[in-house]
C-alpha cells in the first residue's frame, strides 16, 4: 500500500487534524450548500468568506482570538447584506457586491495597519489562503460544536426552508414567515462559512460549499438524497485531496508539495464537470425513451437559460 499512502500518512498528527477538520467542514458546508445552490446564493456564500477574513484581520490587528473575528465578520456581513438587500434576485447580487467591496476595503486597511505596526508579513497569506495543514488542534472541538449547531438549525427548519427556497410566494401564501426563515438560514450560512474559512481557508470554504452541492443536485432531484450525496462527495474529495497533497511531497525533483487547497479544489471542479456530462447523457437517454422518433433531441434543462 505504500505506493498509495506515503510513509507517515497515518501517524502524522497534522494529517489527523486535517482529516477531522476537513471531514467536518465538508459535511457542514455540503448540507448547507445544497440550499445555497437552490436559492442561487453562491455569491453571498462566497462573499461571506471575505467578510469573515475582514473580521479575522481586524482580530489580528487588535490581537484577540481570530476565531471570534472570523465569526463576527461573517455574521455582520450577512446582517449587512440582509439590511442592504432587497428580495429581487438581481438587487440581491448588488447588495452582496456593495457589502463585499466595503469589506475588502476594510480588510486592506486592517492588513496594512497590521503589517506596518507589527511587521508580521505572513498574516496576509495566512488569512487569505489559510491551510488545512496548519490548523491548530485546539480549533477542532470549536469547529465540531458550531458545525453541529449550524446543521441542527438547517435540520430544524428543513421543510419551511425548502419551501421558501423553491417558491417564496407559495411559502408566504401558506402562512410561513419568509423573512424569519431567511434570517435563520443566513445566520446558519454565516456561521458555517465563518468557521470553514478559518479552518480550511477562504478558497476551500467556497469550493466545499458550492461544488459538492451543485454536483449532487445534478445527480438527484430528491432533496434528502442530494444532501446525503453532497456530504459524501464533500468528504471524499477532501480526504482524497489531503492524500494527494501529502503524497505530492515525494513527486518531482524539487520535492515541492502541491498546496492542499489546490488538490481539493481541483477534484471538486473535475467532479462538477464530470457530473455535467453524466447529467446530459442521462437526460438524453430519458428524452430518447420519451420520443423515439427524435433520438438526439436533448431537452432544455433549465427554464429561461436560453
Amino acid at each position, binding site marked *: 500500500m505504500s505506493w498509495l499512502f506515503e510513509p507517515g500518512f497515518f501517524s502524522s498528527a497534522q494529517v489527523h487534524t486535517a482529516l477531522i477538520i476537513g471531514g467536518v467542514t465538508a459535511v457542514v458546508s455540503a448540507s448547507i450548500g445544497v440550499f445555497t*445552490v437552490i436559492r*442561487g*446564493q*453562491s*455569491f453571498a*456564500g*462566497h*462573499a461571506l468568506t471575505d467578510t469573515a477574513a475582514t473580521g479575522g484581520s481586524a482580530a489580528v490587528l487588535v490581537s484577540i482570538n481570530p476565531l471570534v473575528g472570523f465569526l463576527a465578520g461573517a455574521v455582520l456581513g450577512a446582517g449587512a447584506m440582509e439590511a442592504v438587500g432587497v428580495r*429581487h*434576485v*438581481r*438587487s440581491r*447580487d*448588488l447588495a*452582496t*457586491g*456593495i*457589502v*463585499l*467591496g*466595503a*469589506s*475588502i*476595503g*476594510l480588510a*486592506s*486597511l486592517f492588513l*496594512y495597519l497590521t503589517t506596518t505596526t507589527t511587521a508580521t*508579513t505572513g498574516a*496576509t*497569506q495566512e488569512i*487569505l*489562503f489559510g491551510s488545512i495543514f496548519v490548523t491548530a488542534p485546539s480549533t477542532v472541538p470549536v469547529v465540531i460544536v458550531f458545525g453541529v449547531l449550524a446543521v441542527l438549525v438547517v435540520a430544524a427548519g428543513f421543510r419551511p426552508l425548502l419551501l421558501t427556497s423553491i417558491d417564496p410566494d407559495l411559502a408566504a401564501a401558506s402562512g410561513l414567515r419568509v423573512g424569519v426563515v431567511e434570517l435563520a438560514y443566513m445566520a446558519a450560512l454565516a456561521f458555517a462559512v465563518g468557521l470553514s474559512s478559518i479552518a480550511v481557508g*477562504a*478558497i*476551500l470554504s*467556497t*469550493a466545499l460549499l*458550492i*461544488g459538492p452541492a*451543485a454536483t449532487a443536485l*445534478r445527480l438527484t432531484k430528491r432533496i434528502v438524497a442530494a444532501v446525503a450525496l453532497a456530504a459524501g462527495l464533500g468528504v471524499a474529495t477532501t480526504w482524497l485531496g489531503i492524500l494527494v497533497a501529502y503524497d505530492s511531497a515525494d513527486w518531482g525533483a524539487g520535492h*515541492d*508539495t*502541491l*498546496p492542499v*487547497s*489546490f488538490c*481539493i*479544489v*481541483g477534484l*471538486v*471542479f473535475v467532479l*462538477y464537470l464530470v457530473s*455535467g456530462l453524466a447529467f*446530459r447523457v442521462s437526460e438524453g437517454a430519458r428524452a430518447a425513451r420519451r420520443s423515439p422518433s427524435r433520438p438526439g433531441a436533448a431537452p432544455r*434543462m*433549465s427554464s429561461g*437559460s*436560453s
Partner: protein
Amino acid sequence: MFSGFMTNAWIVATMVAVVAGVVGLFVVLRGDAFPAHAIPNGAFAGAAGAALIGANELLGLGVFAVAAALTIGWLGRRGRHDVVTALALVMMLALGAAFLSHTTEYSQEIFSLLFGEVLGVSTTALAPVALLGAGCLIAVGALYRPLLLSSSLPDVAAARGVHNHLIEMAFLVILALATAMTVPVVGSLLIFSLMVGPPAAARVLASRPSRAITLSVAIALLTAWFSIASSYWSNWPIGFFVGVYSAAVYGVAKGGALLHARLRAPTPVLAVSAAA
C-alpha cells in the same frame, strides 16, 4: 500632491475610473456583480503564473482574465450561472496558490496586485492601460444597442434576434480586458468596488441610459480622485478608500431616493417599491 510621481497616479486613476464607470453600469444592469468579482481574482492567478515562468505580468493577467471569462460564459450556458462563477473563481484562486507556493521570492510583489499600487505607477505602464481602456470603450460603443437591450429586457432582445448568449460572452470578455488593465493599478480586489458602487448609485439616480452612463463615470471619477487624495494625505492604502467611498456613495444615493419618494408620495409603500 500633483507633482512628480503623483502625476502618473492621477492620469491612470482617471482612465481606470472612466472605464469602470462605463463597463460597471452594464455589470449592474445585467446583475453580473459576481463575475465582476471573480474575473479579477482569476487574473491575479495569471500574474502569479507569469512570475513563475518569467513571462510578462500584464500578459499573464490578460490571458487568465479572458480564460476565466470564457469558462464562466461557456459553462454558464447550461447549469447555474452563479455556481459556475463560484467554481471558476475557486479554481483560479487555487491555481494562484499553487503558483505562489513555487515562487516565494515574488509573493510580496504579487500581493501588491491584490491591493494595488496606484502611487507607484511608472510612465511605461501608462500606454498599455490607455490602449486596453480605449479597446474596452470602443467595444462597448460598438455593442451599445444590443448590449443595452439584452441587459434590460433579455426576452425582448431574443425576440428581436439578439443572441443573448453571444452578447453575454462578449461582455464577459470586455470585463476581462477592463480587468487586465486595472488590476496592476488598483489591485484585483478593488476594481470590483469601482465597478459596482458608483454605477449602482448612478442607476438609482438616473433612469435614462445615456444619463446613467454619464453620471456613473462622473461618480467613479470623483470616487477615484478622492481616494487618491485621501490615500496621499493619510498614507493608508488606496483600496480602503475606494471600497468605503464606493459603498458610501451607493448608500447615500439609495437613502436619498427612498427619502425623496417618501416625502413626495402620499402612499409610501407603493412609492418605495417603485423606486426600488
